[in-house]
């Protein structure tokens, strides 16, 4: 039995086609997926991301707990409302999940983890929280909407009280705060500016409809995937998982090895990997000709060895195919991809492919 978000009935009324995503019956598109993609790059779109798991972590020893749990260092979080992206690792250095944590106060952090890994994540978090006396509360009472695009913040802020609107527009990137009873974060997964809004489930449909009335396009997970891939953002389960570590997942920047005395889970494994040098790396690929790169296609590397595409799609902004691929560390700039038995030239590029509406590769 698949799960449904509080907005499921609304999606049906709006004519969405839904798919099973991580055990959730989610809208993949309402009309044209490409039109939804362009709406976010050019104006504003709204996504139902209520399937993601919001977890409040509370307790006097919350900082030492998160210092152990996360490969990134919550010591960087000194300003109230500041967000941090990072990974939870196994002892082997494999990625259990990527997540965002928001620093609310000295006894309260909020984490947002992926829908597909909810159960393993919660079990892992609870297992380690006990020793620190940290309380783990899953916020199933909240819905979450992502409003993304160059016009997203202004269109969303206009729906708040006058004071709330000012407060929302004053949020710096990667900051969140409680405004008019809603938790509003200037974060996202599209490479555009915007908000992620957590609010009581009962109020979600009204907000969605108000956004539609303000000209914000309803967008499904299909557009969300092409947008995040253009933005060079990893998708858990595709681009990294328990069998891959951050250094071969283009996530080295989220691993804080300083300060050296911080004993986070997976640290020893990562130090050993770094000492001998990662064997593989996650790179961006740009297909030179026509065709579409897809996950699991084989990548042939002239420097030796094979790689594999972890996520691939047609980029509506670039009007050509792009991908993320895990390849041998020695790979240079030219590769070939096996698409249905034929070899196609592709170029290794550094993601993001697109950011704030602009192509960054050509």
């Amino acid at each position, binding site marked *: 039995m698949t799960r449904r978000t509080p907005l499921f009935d609304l999606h049906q009324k709006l004519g969405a086609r839904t798919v099973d995503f991580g055990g959730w019956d989610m809208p993949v598109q309402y009309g044209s997926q*490409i039109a939804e993609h362009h709406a976010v790059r050019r104006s504003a779109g709204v996504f139902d991301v209520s399937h993601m798991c919001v977890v409040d972590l509370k307790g006097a020893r919350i900082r030492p707990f998160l210092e152990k749990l996360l490969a990134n260092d919550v010591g960087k979080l000194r300003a109230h409302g500041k967000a941090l992206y990072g990974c939870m690792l196994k002892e082997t250095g494999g990625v259990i999940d990527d997540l965002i944590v928001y620093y609310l106060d000295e006894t309260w952090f909020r984490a947002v983890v992926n829908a597909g890994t909810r159960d393993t994540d919660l079990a892992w978090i609870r297992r380690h929280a006990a020793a620190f006396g940290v309380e783990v509360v899953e916020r199933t009472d909240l819905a979450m909407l992502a409003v993304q695009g160059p016009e997203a913040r202004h269109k969303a802020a206009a729906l708040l009280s006058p004071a709330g609107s000012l407060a929302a527009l004053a949020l710096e990137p990667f900051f969140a705060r409680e405004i008019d009873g809603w938790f509003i974060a200037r974060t996202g997964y599209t490479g555009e500016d915007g908000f992620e809004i957590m609010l009581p489930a009962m109020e979600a449909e009204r907000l969605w409809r108000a956004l539609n009335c303000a000209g914000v396009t309803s967008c499904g997970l*299909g557009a969300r995937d092409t947008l995040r891939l253009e933005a060079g953002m990893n998708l858990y389960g595709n681009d990294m998982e328990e069998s891959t570590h951050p250094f071969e997942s283009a996530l080295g920047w989220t691993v804080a090895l300083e300060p050296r005395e911080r004993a986070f889970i997976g640290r020893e494994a990562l130090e050993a990997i770094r000492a001998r040098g990662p064997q593989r790396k996650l790179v961006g690929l740009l297909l030179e000709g*026509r065709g579409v790169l897809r996950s699991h296609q084989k990548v042939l590397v002239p420097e030796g060895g094979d790689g594999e595409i972890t996520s691939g799609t*047609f980029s509506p902004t670039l009007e050509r195919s792009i991908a993320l691929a895990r390849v041998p560390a020695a790979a240079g700039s030219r590769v070939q991809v096996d698409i249905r038995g034929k070899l196609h030239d592709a170029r290794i590029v550094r993601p993001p492919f697109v950011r704030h509406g602009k192509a960054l590769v050509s």
Partner: protein
Amino acid sequence: MSNVPSDLKYTKSHEWLRTLSDGTVEVGITDHAQHALGDLVFVEVPEVGRKLSAGEPFAVVESVKAASDVYAPLSGEVTASNAALAAEPEAINSDAYGKGWLMRVRPAGGGAGPALLTAAEYEKLIAEEGG
């Protein structure tokens, strides 16, 4: 509701067939199929002269989401393929039975291909599939 022209034949795998005045058969994918696939972004059509057996994949249509094979509804030799789709794959979305045609085939005599459906039968099929 999908558009199902009454003058065409159909297959269970969502191809359409139109017999032309020169005896060749034009083949494409149905409006129902293009709608299910979503925005098409790449199409691979067969080479002219290729000999096809009924049931074998002869083209690939790729939407943003996925690549799908298209199956030959009859045996024969490809006499033309729609090269314009390379630059304009979205023609299949906008005009599945016209500008979105994939190939023309001169039927090989003899062996019958898979059973073809009338428009009414095809409409019933997609209604049963929830289309």
